[in-house]
């Protein structure tokens, strides 16, 4: 199927006419550069190596505040990050509130990058933000196309995905 890369990974999560913009690592980096208060949300699917390192490197390279969901906190804390732990529905609920001051108390975030949340609950969270958080953009850098995000990596195999993540986490 020629467009397999941009059909939502679980095809039935298609919610309506609006679909995410397909992005490359370069475009994703541009979105981060342009953002004033980005936030990286790391889920339990990236708590093991090599993804743990890829994700940590991205957080460090871009100096991103990090929220971990489910039990992803400990591995990232041990890796040297200083994450804040929330349930994925809790953080999405906070992000929906334009008055929330963000994880560092500096104001609501304007870009939220998701990596490693379970696909279907992640998709629901992105749908919630799509509807009720017009004040921010969402970007997913999982190996799955998320149609409910504003921007998403395509569906891809591990090899290609690892290259994408390495690229985003490497200086220069």
């Amino acid at each position, binding site marked *: 199927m020629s467009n397999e890369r941009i059909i939502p990974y*679980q095809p039935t999560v298609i919610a309506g006419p609006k679909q995410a913009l397909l992005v490359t690592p370069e475009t994703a980096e541009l979105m981060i550069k342009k953002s004033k208060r980005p936030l990286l949300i790391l889920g339990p699917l990236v708590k093991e190596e090599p993804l743990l390192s890829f994700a940590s490197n991205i957080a460090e390279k871009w100096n991103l505040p990090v929220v971990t969901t489910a*039990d992803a906190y400990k591995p990232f804390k041990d890796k040297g990050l200083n994450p804040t732990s929330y349930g994925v529905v809790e953080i999405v*609920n906070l992000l929906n509130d334009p008055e929330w001051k963000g994880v560092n108390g500096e104001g609501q975030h304007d870009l939220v990058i998701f990596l490693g949340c379970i696909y279907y609950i992640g998709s629901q969270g992105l749908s919630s933000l799509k509807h009720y958080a017009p004040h921010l953009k969402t970007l997913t850098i999982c190996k799955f196309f998320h149609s409910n995000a504003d921007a998403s990596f395509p569906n891809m195999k591990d090899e290609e995905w690892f290259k994408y993540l390495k690229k985003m986490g490497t200086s220069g």
Partner: protein
Amino acid sequence: MIVVAPEQNSKAKKFKDDFWKSKDIKISIGDIVETKGDTPESDTPMGPTPKPHVTDLRSWDMKLLSRYEPFYAPFCDMCCLCTFGKCDLLDKKGACGIDSKAQQARIVLLACNIGTAAHAGHSRHLIHHLIEELGEDFPIDLGLNIDIEAPLIRTIIGKKPQKLSDLEETMSYVEQQLSHLLSACHTGQEGSYLDFESKALHSGVMDDLAREVGDMAQIVALNMPKGDGDAPLVEMGVGTIDSEKPVVLCIGHNVLPGSNIMDYLDETGQEEDLEVCGICCAAIDISRYNDRAKVVGPLSRQLKFIRSGVADVIIVDEQCIRTDVLEEAQKKNTAVIATTDKMCLGLPDMTDKDPDLIVSKLLNKEIEGALILDSDKVGEVSVKVAKILAPERKKLKLLPELDEVQNMALECTECAWCNRVCPNDKPMMEAVVAAGKGDFSGFEKLYLNDVCYSCGRCEQECERELPLMSMLAKAGERLAKTEKFNIRAGRGPVQDVEIRRVGAPLVLGDIPGVIAIVGCSNYPDGGKEVAEMAKEFLERNYIVVATGCGAMSIGEYTDEEGKTLYERYSGDFESRGLLNIGSCVSNAHISGACIKIANIFAKKPLEGNFEEIADYILNRVGACGVAWGAYSQKAAAIATGVNRWGIPAVVGPHGSKYRRLYLGRADKKENWKIKDMRTGKIMDGEPAPEHLIYAAENMAEATVMTAKLCIRPTDTGKGRQIKLNHYIDLYKKYYGELPPDIHLFVRNEKDIPITYKKDVKEILDNVGWEPREIPQEPSLMGIGDD
């Protein structure tokens, strides 16, 4: 006629004669409110809201909804309910004016109504049938240890039901409310998301009532265990079923066809000749009726077991049954008998035909299956068909050989669409590819603990049309034979005497909480996690109650000695007690136990007194539901119902697809104000419980959140220490350090668990914590517009 319970001496007269019809006489008897002087409720004044209409408890709902604001995650951007549409509601209103939030809440209300209707239809059928069999005056008597037989009915309806016909009044009320609630879903009715939610909460409580009616009726009329902690152990698991014998499988939720099969076997002396087993709640309820019935397992077993061909006859009743059951059964020459109006499957109605004629037509394939709406007749027909069919079907009880599975697996093109359409995102393709090389471990991993819950969506997508579920069933066959467990038969309600024993330690916090493991088997990673959660809380002295598929999954875990948790822990409502309460309808007894605590321990009157009772439960009773695999509309109604009573619930990640959660905001101090009813003072409260319904991403998160949601404002210092100790322990176990929000739950230094004193104090110092006043009678009543 098959007698389903001991005959009563005096049977009610049946007004079925033509005389009444021919004279067109209509009898209308008004509600009789007064009861005999010696009944306990005669002195009890009626509270403010007997038989509340849709809007009568709205003020309570709005209090809950302002603290636990609805969180919406649309499953669909559009509305396609009327011909104006489809309407795209993303940043827009629909043609009728509805916005996205109201539409989500409307769909939630619709789901709750569907769930409530399923239970109400089930219960109405049960009482109709049982009254016909046993008479209107058959007494509702749950034995000496249960005086408060119907805590939900008493609180909502305002009366104690004393005989079967009294339950009809409750059903009529539920049905009336349900039509109003369903009406509100029509285009151009409700427009406020909060009012849709208030109606969903009302629907949930109607569901509660319907379930209480259904379970009480079947307990008293079919003589099921009446709050018996020592209810018998029942065999469970595919390995317990002797496929050499004729096998009748019951799927669904209605006990009547199954109980009649057991009666027919007893009456004809054939009880040792056949295997009667069940899947889903029908299994639980038949084994409550007769402990020789076997439990195959939860809903997740359905397709695998049908494909195994072990069943000679499949009896379907209602709810949660595969709608393609007939097609699947025909592939294995298994006879299908549909038994309720809810699921007729296009089959010819044979209700009035002679049983032997039906048997003959089924065996000769003159009919595809039979619709038999008389459960007495189902018993006879199913047994006769199974006995004749079983010898003919011997070869069909075999799955393809493993080398056939390997050959089929070699056809896989590795397109990976089986993985992509798997709702649970499991590696089916990898299992197939490995099987092609003779390695069946991938299939076995999917089979074990129902990690693959056999929905069969992968098969629908496979471009080679591989029978993936049959391949899985074959690869797991070796494991299935070892699946031999024991589950305690559903015991029914918690006894009053048990409440008297644990009421104080529960309300004061010495018993850290009641964990209710309920619901279906749409688990993110298999049923073992449910047993692990149960074990975790049992070892920590919580009371664990369970129903339905959750209760079955708990029983599928064995320790080193081969014992299930049901064999290791007491079945009594006490610290470290593990209670199988029963089926879906038995969930009513869980809210019922919380209501009884308010009544027995705190002497709160029940009749017509919903808000005070719910307020008490919310603020004092440390109970939390865990519906780890919730999937159905019934589960939506159940959860929404318990939420209105003030009981929080944690659902699995699939629960986010219900579109709505009720989440508290611990960071908004103003949301947690309470009134101390003792002093009349409005005070700062604490986020306890923090959420009303919460979706967790994995088991670790769910376990920690469940412990946290047992904290209540009235915990004593000692009780709070115990609860915080468990919360900290579990947080440390899964997150590696102390919970960062621990300061929110420390009211004064007496609350700090001794084991963690130093660490907690350090956190308190860092956040500038100061001790705060503890309310004596915290309440949401008197807050807001009250």
